[in-house]
């Protein structure tokens, strides 16, 4: 009896309390961050200068930015850093010099290899060149820890050069976005893909329905109009109805 009361009145609340604390506490991490809340993270600093490298520490398993599916998939916590595997394009994203070992690299232009990345709003509208964002040689891989393009500091080192106060969230805007109509986009950027389909069906549906509706309508009304215009003709032609119309005269020249 007593032990059951002990269980109910002491142990159970304590266990629940501990469980609650365990849920609320940040998960165990290999490195300590200066901001302990995993929800707010850098939020209060994001709109300031953007520079907080003094306090910067290595991120935990999850990177401190809102995920874009493609980028997150590229970063695998399991696969180690392998500089030897430089020939694989996927692994190049973690190299200090991502173009190391490419033949005649000095003579080539970016868009010869990066065809998909060439035309986008920043180059077409903003008149930017690749290097204005990606920097000079050596161009580090995007996931190389000390790269300015690394998502943990990209907003401060790249975006904020023009977009004053750019934060981590802002930097997840996809400059080199996949084509919305491409089936592969369903996996890499699902919301864009489905929005594209929704708007496509809306435009085609609305225009097809009302286009057809209006075309038939105007056509039919014009047809009736012409028919009505044609109708009185036989009456005019018959001499019994209005013969004076047929006779040319000073008042009624034909």
């Amino acid at each position, binding site marked *: 009896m007593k032990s059951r009361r002990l269980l109910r009145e002491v142990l159970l609340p304590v266990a629940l309390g501990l469980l609650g604390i365990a849920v609320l506490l940040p998960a165990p991490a290999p490195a300590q961050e200066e901001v302990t809340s995993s929800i707010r993270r850098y939020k209060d600093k994001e709109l300031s200068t953007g520079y907080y490298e003094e306090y910067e520490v290595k991120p935990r398993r999850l990177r401190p930015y*809102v995920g874009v599916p493609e980028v997150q998939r590229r970063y695998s916590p399991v696969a180690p850093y392998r500089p030897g595997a430089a020939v694989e394009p996927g692994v190049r994203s973690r190299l200090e010099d991502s173009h190391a070992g490419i033949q005649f690299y000095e003579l080539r232009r970016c868009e010869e290899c990066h065809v998909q990345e060439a035309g986008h709003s920043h180059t077409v509208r903003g008149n930017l060149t690749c290097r204005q964002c990606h920097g000079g040689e050596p161009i580090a891989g995007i996931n190389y820890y000390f790269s300015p393009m690394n998502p943990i500091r990209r907003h401060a080192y790249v975006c904020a050069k023009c977009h*004053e106060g*750019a934060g981590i969230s802002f930097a997840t*805007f996809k400059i080199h976005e996949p084509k919305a109509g491409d089936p592969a986009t369903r996996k890499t950027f699902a919301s864009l893909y489905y929005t594209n389909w929704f708007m496509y069906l809306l435009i085609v549906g609305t225009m097809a329905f009302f*286009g057809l509706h209006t075309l038939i309508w105007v056509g039919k009304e014009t047809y009736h109009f012409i028919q009505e215009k044609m109708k009185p003709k036989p009456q005019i032609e018959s001499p019994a109805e209005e013969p004076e119309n047929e006779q040319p005269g000073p008042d009624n020249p034909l």
Partner: protein
Amino acid sequence: MNNQVRIIRFNIFDRLFHVFIMVTFLLQAVTGLGRLLYNTAWGKGVANFFGGYDRATSIHNTVGILMIIGFVIHIAYILAKVEWKAWRRSLFSPDSLVPRLEDAKHLGQKFRWFLGLGPPPAFDRWTYWEKFDYWAVFWGLPLLGLTGIILMFPVGMSRLFPGWVLNVLVLLHRAEALLAMLYIFIIHFTIGHLRRGMFPMNECMFAGSVELEKERQEKPLWIARLQKDGRLEEAMVPGPPRWFRLLYFTFGYAVLVVGLYLLINIFLYRNFIEWH
């Protein structure tokens, strides 16, 4: 025109709202298309007409805010217009633009008439396509306004949600704007200008009044209802003066020409449109 019996259809506020949305919509269409097609010589020319890409953008933003203000004023206007003490009757009467079951029936009847299977539908005050026109703007304007405001302040707004949402919003904004332009420049212009009874121009949105005899054929139930309620006499108004007709004919046709010019260029440069 002036010696015919005319009854009032739109009050001065309705007409002002329409002229307001005509001017702002056209400005948005021109500045927006100039920037959308900035990768073509035509788009550059249009944007340069407004002083370049950045200036066209700021005009687009300012006019967009004006449109949102106009929309809010319109909401206040319709909220004030509803008789809230008898809201059920006020909202769902034939004088209201709220869709009714009859509209669906009219649409079906219209298609039966297209196929020669029956008489054309007899309309009350608002036909289903007029209601669709109204509600299309009513849904399009908040969507374009909201996405536009967010895209106007990308850095601040990306504190509220991830930045890649802006990619989706750009697509939404452009696609919805293109749908609006196609609908207005093709369907709305055809219905307003090319229909047999309307041919040079459907003047009622500018003049505010319609010819009674014409309306007796187009919307017999409305006229019958006015007659039954004894309100037909008080609905009669004099026709628009000659100078005013000249003014709105010029204005209407100027807008028509600009709209068709944009439409043609949308089709010419359709392959250069970046949807997002």
